[in-house]
């Protein structure tokens, strides 16, 4: 089916080019039938890419090693679950996933906008199909997922063991959904700028897609952090890696847009700003995709060096120049319709929050690309790590949390001092009490004042959200006399954007409290222990009870059972292992290649609401090295003896001899591995006791829940009322109509 797959890609490319051209022609001439052709091209592209993706998935499922991409990223022993995810572990497959998701989301937005924003849609269609054309060109000309070989290997190389993690099933599709969804606001912004239709209608169309992009990208980022925490064996969840940053930047940018779009909808303000944020978010998404695929910056998440850098640079240049040109061209029409009434208003808080978010984007962008900038200027690539981010990001994050608390309790347009006092008293008290209690609990001083401030601000934000929800419930109960749970559900149901957003703010506070605590008050110890020995970390005694070892055709594993106790009381028993996967490189030796391939870590983790006890083993294979080298020499000699006799005996006899040799090799490997248990030696452990890490995942879940509430469509009955109201038109006063909708 490889031929069919390749043909589908070429056909898809043709459809994308035709659809983009038809849309532009229809837009220029006003001929709707051509615009409709463009729309149908997007639907057709979605169908073709779905078929292509199914063909690729089927090849992975049946381990069809005639497909190069299957031979390179899967094997017959890869579990079925991971065979399904293997396509996006490759450059070729992930590009196909990108264009497939792009076509699906594009189809959805064009389906939902039938009969709406009719002037903008053709240009948006052309832009979306332009992105489709770009990515399809990459799959057709540079990274074909349907490339085959006439001489397939008997066994595939297998999936990178680091990707054998449940998060990897969802993480890339989430990130790619976020990236591809960001192209939708971009496309509609370009359409609005070209046509000069710069009112709030295009904002209303893209708002939900921007929110979806924010949600998917956020989930993707958090899943990546979880994978890093449990799989990579370094004890952290965020390393300020270029690829991590590449996902964070558009997320920050679209977060700013989600807030500032409300100001444009309500006040007709910030039009240049909003257009710039949308254009910037999509450009940053493409820059992120470029970072993953070009190999220009070193990252554990990247696909490594490739030939895709130049096309991406050209696309990014076109997006940047085109965006700037369009905004400058339409600047007169992008003037605000009104001005800020007061600096004490929600729109002022949103504006300030936008500046903070954009400052964060700037910092992340500058520090991430500093190695490239330094290389361009001085000729030397200067590596910068997490310490370069913290002096800027931490204070900005503190201000952001403060503003996320102020936003929900300050009204639009104007606020009086009396109202401020009324709304701020309880949350400020909660924040201060939190801060004072923590300072007192810490003995009056702390070496981590910024973390304490974050806890205080977190308390303030959570208090504002609880207060807002409680007041909303009380107001609703005053009208309806509903019980509290019913009033709460009705309140949120009828004001999803507002209360979904508040819940997101509370989740952000919980998440950042977790980040501040785990990064500031972590205790770690890198120790070498023999069985029976122990180390003490933050009052926990962690004893190396006994070694574990196992060998199979797929993996050699060395591990340890650890007993954790505190004050003489048993807390938990942890098991940590490090797996070694055989390398395909024959120069590593017949035995050696089983010990020198890719490795992954299985951390021993006890996660709790107050602290995590995190352990990982890093076994030193030095004591086995002499035996491994000896085995390599002996087996190499035996193998060459068998091969030298091959011309004198039958093929069957040679094969039998080789099989016997391989059986001896497997026995030797098992014997070597068993020495880890029979003659145990000291091995290295990284032991970490970290507070409130679980709050990060809990905060992420709260954020996702709030995001889903805000994203969920308005109930049908509310839409019917809105339609009825529109039909009633002038007969109903606006305030009455608004009350009806509420």
């Amino acid at each position, binding site marked *: *089916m490889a*031929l*069919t797959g390749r*043909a*589908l890609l070429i*056909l898809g490319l043709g*459809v994308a080019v*035709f659809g983009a051209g038809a849309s532009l022609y229809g837009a220029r001439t*006003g*001929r*709707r*039938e*051509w615009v*409709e*052709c463009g729309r*149908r*091209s997007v*639907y*057709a592209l979605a*169908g*073709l890419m779905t078929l292509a993706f199914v063909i690729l998935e089927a090849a992975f499922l049946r381990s069809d090693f005639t497909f190069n991409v299957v031979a390179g990223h899967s094997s017959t022993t890869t579990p079925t679950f991971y065979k399904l995810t293997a396509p996006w572990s490759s450059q070729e497959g992930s590009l196909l996933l990108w264009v497939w998701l792009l076509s699906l989301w594009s189809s959805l937005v064009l389906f939902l906008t039938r009969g*709406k*924003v*009719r*002037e903008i849609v053709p240009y948006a269609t052309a832009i979306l199909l332009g992105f489709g054309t770009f990515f399809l060109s990459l799959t057709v000309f540079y990274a074909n997922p349907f490339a085959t070989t006439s001489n397939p290997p008997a066994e595939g190389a297998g999936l990178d063991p680091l990707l054998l993690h449940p998060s990897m099933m969802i993480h890339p599709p989430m990130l790619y959904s976020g990236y591809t969804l960001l192209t939708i606001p971009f496309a509609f912004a370009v359409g609005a700028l070209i046509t000069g*239709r710069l*009112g709030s*209608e295009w904002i*209303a169309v893209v708002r939900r897609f921007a929110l979806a992009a924010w949600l998917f990208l956020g989930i993707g980022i958090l899943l990546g952090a979880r994978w890093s925490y449990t799989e990579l064996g370094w004890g952290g969840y965020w390393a300020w890696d270029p690829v991590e940053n590449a996902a964070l930047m558009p997320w920050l940018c679209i977060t700013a847009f989600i807030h500032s779009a409300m100001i444009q*909808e*309500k006040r007709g303000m910030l039009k240049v700003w909003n257009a710039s944020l949308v254009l910037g978010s999509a450009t940053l998404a493409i820059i992120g995709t470029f970072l993953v695929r070009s190999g220009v910056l070193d990252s554990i998440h990247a696909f490594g060096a490739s030939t895709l850098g130049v096309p991406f640079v050209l696309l990014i240049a076109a997006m940047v120049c085109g965006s700037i040109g369009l905004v400058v061209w339409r600047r007169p029409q992008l003037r605000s319709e009104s001005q800020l009434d007061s600096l004490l208003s929600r729109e002022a808080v949103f504006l300030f929050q936008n500046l903070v978010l954009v400052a964060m984007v700037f910092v992340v962008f500058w520090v991430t690309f500093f190695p490239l900038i330094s290389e361009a200027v001085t000729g030397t690539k200067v590596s910068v790590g997490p310490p370069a981010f913290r002096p800027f990001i931490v204070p900005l994050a503190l201000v952001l949390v403060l503003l996320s608390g102020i936003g929900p*309790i*300050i*009204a*639009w*347009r*104007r*606020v*009086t001092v*009396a*109202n401020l006092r009324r*709304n701020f008293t309880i949350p400020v008290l909660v924040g201060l009490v939190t801060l004072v209690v923590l300072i007192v609990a810490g003995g009056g001083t702390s070496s981590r004042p910024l973390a304490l401030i974050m806890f205080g601000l977190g308390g303030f934000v959570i208090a504002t959200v609880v207060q*807002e929800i409680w*007041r*909303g419930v009380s*107001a609703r109960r*005053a009208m309806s006399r509903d019980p509290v749970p019913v009033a709460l559900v009705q309140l949120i149901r009828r*004001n999803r954007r*507002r209360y979904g957003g508040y819940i997101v703010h509370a989740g952000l506070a919980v998440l950042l409290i977790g980040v501040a605590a785990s990064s500031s008050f972590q205790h770690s110890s890198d120790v070498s222990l023999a069985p029976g020995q122990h180390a003490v970390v933050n009052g926990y005694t962690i004893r190396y009870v006994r070694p574990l070892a196992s060998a199979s055709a797929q993996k050699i594993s060395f591990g340890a059972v650890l007993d954790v106790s505190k004050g003489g009381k048993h807390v938990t028993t942890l098991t940590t292992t490090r797996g070694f996967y055989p390398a395909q490189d024959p120069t590593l030796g017949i035995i050696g290649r089983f010990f020198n391939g890719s490795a992954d870590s299985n951390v021993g983790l006890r996660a709790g609401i107050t602290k995590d006890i995190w352990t990982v083993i890093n076994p030193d294979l030095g004591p086995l090295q002499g035996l491994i080298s000896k085995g390599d020499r002996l087996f190499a000699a035996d193998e060459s003896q068998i091969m030298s006799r091959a011309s004198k005996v039958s093929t069957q006899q040679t094969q039998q001899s080789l099989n016997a040799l391989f059986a001896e090799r497997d026995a030797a490997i098992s014997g070597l591995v068993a020495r880890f248990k029979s003659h145990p030696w000291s091995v290295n452990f990284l032991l970490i006791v970290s507070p409130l890490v679980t709050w990060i995942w809990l905060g992420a879940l709260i954020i996702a829940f709030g995001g889903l509430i805000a994203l969920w469509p308005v109930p049908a009955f509310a839409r019917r009322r*809105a339609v009825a109201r*529109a039909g009633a*038109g*002038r007969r109903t*006063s*606006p*305030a009455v109509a*608004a*009350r009806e*909708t*509420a």
Partner: protein
Amino acid sequence: MLQFLIVLAILAVVVIVVTGPLRSVSRPSATADDSTEIADLEAAREAKYREIRDAELDHSTGKLSDEDFEAVDRTLRAEAVEILHALDRARRA
């Protein structure tokens, strides 16, 4: 051969689906400008209704004092009526 036939069939379906609108009688789209203006005004009207509703919720949850709410509500209603008038004019045109 089978793959070739499959691809050919897919190609035929795609061509029929994508070019379908070109084979049907095209309708004039002279009202595009008007409908776009109406759509813009309808979006503005919805946003204004939402703003009125938000102000009411802000008032009921104590974020706006009675005086502030009256002033804001009066302004919002005036803006909404202006939009509704513009919408009427656009529809009549």
